[in-house]
């Protein structure tokens, strides 16, 4: 049966194109346009980071990482991410628990407010903290009296980073936990588990891939944030420069190799993030929220 039936179908395929397929010429033209556009606008900027960093050889590439200011920038970036990511992780868990497991009025307003930092320019995000904490700002006089520096110091950088990465974990977890509902938690609780135990043994395993996904994106943005951090940092070498700010300074001094060498670190982080993201979407797509990803 199969031999008799298959041959005419195959022959028909060769002759006729299904009505839902575009003509080959249009198809090839569109593929060529898309590939060329992506190559010129996405792949070339990525490739040149590595090419420029290695343009004077491996030795001068590695020399960039022996500069104490560069090392200080790397340490500060790690410190900022280590503070900002857990802060937004805890917030993301609290926000998604209260929004997904309970019903209360004004929920959609709350969700919109949580997404707010994504619609604020990074520079404006930095500016609002200047308005609150700088010498001319709201708490400026009080802070100066008590000898606390927030703007042009590490706390300001951490706060600005928390602001720009604020929604990442929450916006991944809220739709995911809403999809999952609360039946499993209710079952665990009525069977006598404590609230915390329910969270650890029922909720957490359900959301672990979505949580990892959100943390990954949050971390990438925290380590790479430029605009907001640039406004509050004051650009003090060795003290308040994160990697992106150090890249800017080196680039403006025409120290291309060193600037791109540090940029390689960030580009590598971006590639790892994209790799993990693609892996999670491919392997655990059903355990991530189905919402369109826009950030």
């Amino acid at each position, binding site marked *: 049966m199969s031999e008799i039936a298959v041959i005419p179908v195959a022959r028909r395929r060769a002759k006729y194109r299904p009505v839902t397929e575009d003509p080959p010429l249009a198809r090839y033209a569109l593929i060529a346009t898309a590939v060329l556009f992506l190559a*010129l606008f996405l792949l070339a900027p990525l490739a*040149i980071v590595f090419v420029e960093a290695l343009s004077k050889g491996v030795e001068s590439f590695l020399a960039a990482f022996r500069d104490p200011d560069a090392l200080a920038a790397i340490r500060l970036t790690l410190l900022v991410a280590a503070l900002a990511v857990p802060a937004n992780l805890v917030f993301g868990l609290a926000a998604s628990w209260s929004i997904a497991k309970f019903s209360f*009025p004004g929920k959609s307003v709350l969700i919109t407010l949580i997404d*707010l930092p994504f619609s604020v320019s990074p520079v404006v995000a930095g500016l609002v903290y200047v*308005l609150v904490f700088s010498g001319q700002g709201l708490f400026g006089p009080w802070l100066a009296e008590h000898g606390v520096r927030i703007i042009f110091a590490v706390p300001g950088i951490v706060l600005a980073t928390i602001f720009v990465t604020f929604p990442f974990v929450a916006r991944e977890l809220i739709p995911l936990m809403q999809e999952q509902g609360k039946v499993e938690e209710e079952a665990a609780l009525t069977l006598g588990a404590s609230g915390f135990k329910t969270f650890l043994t029922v909720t957490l395993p359900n959301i672990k891939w979505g949580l990892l996904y959100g943390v990954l994106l949050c971390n990438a943005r925290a380590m790479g944030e*430029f605009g907001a951090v640039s406004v509050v940092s004051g650009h003090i070498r060795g003290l308040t420069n994160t990697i992106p700010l150090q890249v800017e300074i080196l680039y403006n001094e025409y120290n291309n190799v060193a600037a791109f060498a540090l940029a390689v670190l*960030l580009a590598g982080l971006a590639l790892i993030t994209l790799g993990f993201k*693609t892996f999670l979407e491919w392997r655990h797509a059903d355990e991530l929220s189905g919402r369109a990803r*826009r950030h």
Partner: protein
Amino acid sequence: MTSPSFVGKNARRFTAPSVIPGFGLTFGYTLVYLGLIVLFPLATLIWWSSELGLSGLYAIASEPRVAAALRTTFFISFAAAVVDLFFGLIVAWTLTRYDFPGRRLLDAFVDLPFALPTAVAGISLAALYSPNGWFGAPLADFDIKIAFTRWGILVALIFIGLPFVVRTVQPIISELEVELEEASATLGARRMQTVIHVMLPPLTPALLTGFALAFARSIGEYGSVIFIAGNIAYVSEIAPLLIVEKLEQYDVAGATGVATIMLAVSFAALLLINLIQAWSRRRFGHV
């Protein structure tokens, strides 16, 4: 919970009774954290700009240099979003409907502008398009300058905005119903007619949303632009850079004024996106 007055109690409660614990703690923490990190600082900005008043804001916006920067920002952001709309649709269509070697890899790379720190994008675009760069050198032979002109801003904003269009449109393309295409074809439509009259209309809300997202992001973009723009006052200076410059000159009021205008436009774009999505839900039953 099971007392006879259950219904009456419930009516007065903020949240419906539930066996799940922790509402007070998590909801309270959410509100406090949101208030301290996001709402209070933004409110401070609005308070500062209310001190300026509408006339003060107008005076700042009509300073020639500020007006030029705002025009540059809005006009080029719009142009970049148009380019992203066109190529984003082609990229989304190609990645969703066709199969070709390297498709999955390209699909993953569409998110690069989200993942690559803006400063890195900025210096690499500047290096590519500078007069002795990979693209800058051949273009210079034709007397075309990209880096350190307004075209440089356009290139950077196209880079930043692309994933917004692609990622918004892609899921809708993959959900298009094949039956409708078949019906259209059996009713005698040519392929082009089917594409234009049957397949593109349901994509319109997603395209508009992607466009608005790309536009809103472009207005605030700073890191990827300033390296390639050349930052010539009145020509290639963007509004966010002006905020930074005003802050460096201790002109906090001026910086606040520019920021308020930008914030108002971003919120208008956000509102527009929500309206598009509400309209889309009514018209097409999806976002």
